């Protein structure tokens, strides 16, 4: 019985390949998976001749896969280095806010940008030093491959690295959970619909407002990259995905003109 199902599955997928001639592979940042997966079925319905597969793996992996020809579209919220981007076209999706969040008991809800820099770099070790509670600062960060970390180190830390003593969490969700439950925690998350249980820090004079998210100055710019030499249908798909009306529900705000 098991073998029968197995063969039927193989047979069906073979038929699928034969009928649909084109196959497009998308790979890269998992932050973009939800919006892509939301839009893709509609697009596939309009293009029954094309089969699209989507995998995560991170921004760097996506960029490398596209530049090496292992994928057709790379999802990345990291700006690719010059050497890589030369042969590629980018289709930006907009701005994805990155928010700085603290544990509820730190006693601070606003810091200046230099303070934030010193906090994240590990120079300030206690919340007291920025007018908060007497609690050690515990920096929570994403790994080096994260687009949010890339942006934070460039914009807030001016090229320095996040404190080497930071707790590393792989996913946005795990980082959020860690900040909620760890006393003195400070971290950064990409936009998410739910920010209960943490302090969303105002930085300088900027305060995040969900309705005016496009005003928030710290964001990544998730972009779909394709090779310049790619077939028209691939560029078509990237362009269509980047204009998806579903973007708003995933926190992707339009770029300011």
């Amino acid at each position, binding site marked *: 019985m098991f073998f029968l199902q197995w063969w039927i599955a193989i047979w069906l997928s073979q038929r699928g390949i034969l009928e649909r001639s084109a196959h497009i592979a998308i790979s890269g940042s998992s932050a973009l998976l939800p919006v892509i997966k939301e839009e893709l079925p509609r697009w596939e319905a309009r293009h029954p001749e094309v089969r699209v597969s989507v995998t995560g793996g991170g921004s760097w992996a996506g960029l490398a896969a596209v530049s090496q020809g292992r994928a057709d579209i790379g999802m990345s919220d990291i700006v690719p280095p010059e050497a890589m981007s030369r042969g590629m076209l980018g289709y930006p999706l907009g701005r994805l806010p990155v928010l700085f969040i603290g544990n509820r008991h730190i006693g601070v809800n606003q810091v200046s940008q230099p303070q934030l820099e010193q906090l994240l770099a590990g120079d300030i070790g206690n919340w007291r030093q920025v007018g908060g509670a007497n609690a050690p600062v515990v920096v929570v960060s994403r*790994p080096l*491959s994260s687009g949010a970390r890339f942006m934070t180190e460039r914009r807030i830390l001016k090229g320095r690295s996040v404190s080497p003593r930071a*707790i590393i*969490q*792989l996913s946005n969700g795990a980082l959020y959970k860690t900040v909620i439950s760890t006393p003195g925690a400070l971290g950064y998350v990409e936009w998410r619909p739910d920010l209960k249980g943490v302090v969303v820090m105002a930085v300088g004079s900027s305060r995040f407002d969900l309705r005016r998210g496009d005003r928030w100055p710290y964001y990544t710019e998730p972009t779909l990259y394709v090779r310049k030499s790619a077939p028209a249908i691939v560029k078509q798909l990237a362009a269509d995905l980047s204009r998806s009306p579903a973007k708003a529900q995933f926190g992707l705000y339009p770029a300011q003109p």
Partner: protein
Amino acid sequence: MTVHQKNLRTERVQHGLFLAAAALLIAVGFAFWGTLGWGTLRFFLQHGLNRTILGLRYHPIQGEFGLLPFIAGSLSVTLIAVVLAYPLALSVAVTATMVLPHRWLPAIRQTVGSLAAIPSVIFGWWGLAMVVPLVRKLGGGTGFSVAAAGIVLAVMIVPTLSLLAIHAAMRVPERWVEGSLALGATPDQTLGRVVLQSIRAPLAEAGIVAVGRALGETMAVQMVIGGQTFFPHNVFAPGATLTSEILNDIGLLPPGAFGHHVLDVMALLLLLAMYGLVLLVERIGGREIG
């Protein structure tokens, strides 16, 4: 065609299928070793032997590939997990097979078996919610630590270990237990001197399987260990294991990136450790009960 001929043909086909499956498995195995070995070789050709396996500093972007912190992390997390889980699993097995009525045994085995099938990310979330705060209370600091990872892993491997220990304990014949009791041994003495004594080999085997499981676990460990690349100087310090660091860096070091092959080196180290364990299992497994 006679039934006999038909049977013969079916047998030939089956034989061919099994052979093909075995060949595929061997090929995949060789491909694995080959890929990792080749990657490791290229890593050493590119970066030399300095500042690599025995180094203490790890920063792949800056060309520092010290793996000692992760080796220490893997070893200590595994040690903590097995030391915590083993006595617990042993008591589960003894309770299930010797203390509780025998008709409960199938239900216990099913329950324990289903626990063994829980995906590790669930244990990771559980560790984040329960174990990290507990360790924070016990040892201070953030709670994200080698100890937290060890505890989460211990809970993870208890079901597997219990199941193996239950199987081992079920192999002890009733007549040895009766023989011991009839000589005036108390139930405790019988347990220690006959039951556990006679299944030392399968219990050691179970332990090695547990070590393998702990050594290879990735997701649950990553979520509670803290992910720092420094050498963990005590169990309440954050750290990383070979597996959790591979997970952290696999996005940063895609194939073709500078330093990508350090992942091959880490994976090869794990594979070698596992291979050593398998050899150990075989040596112990050779000694049978009886």
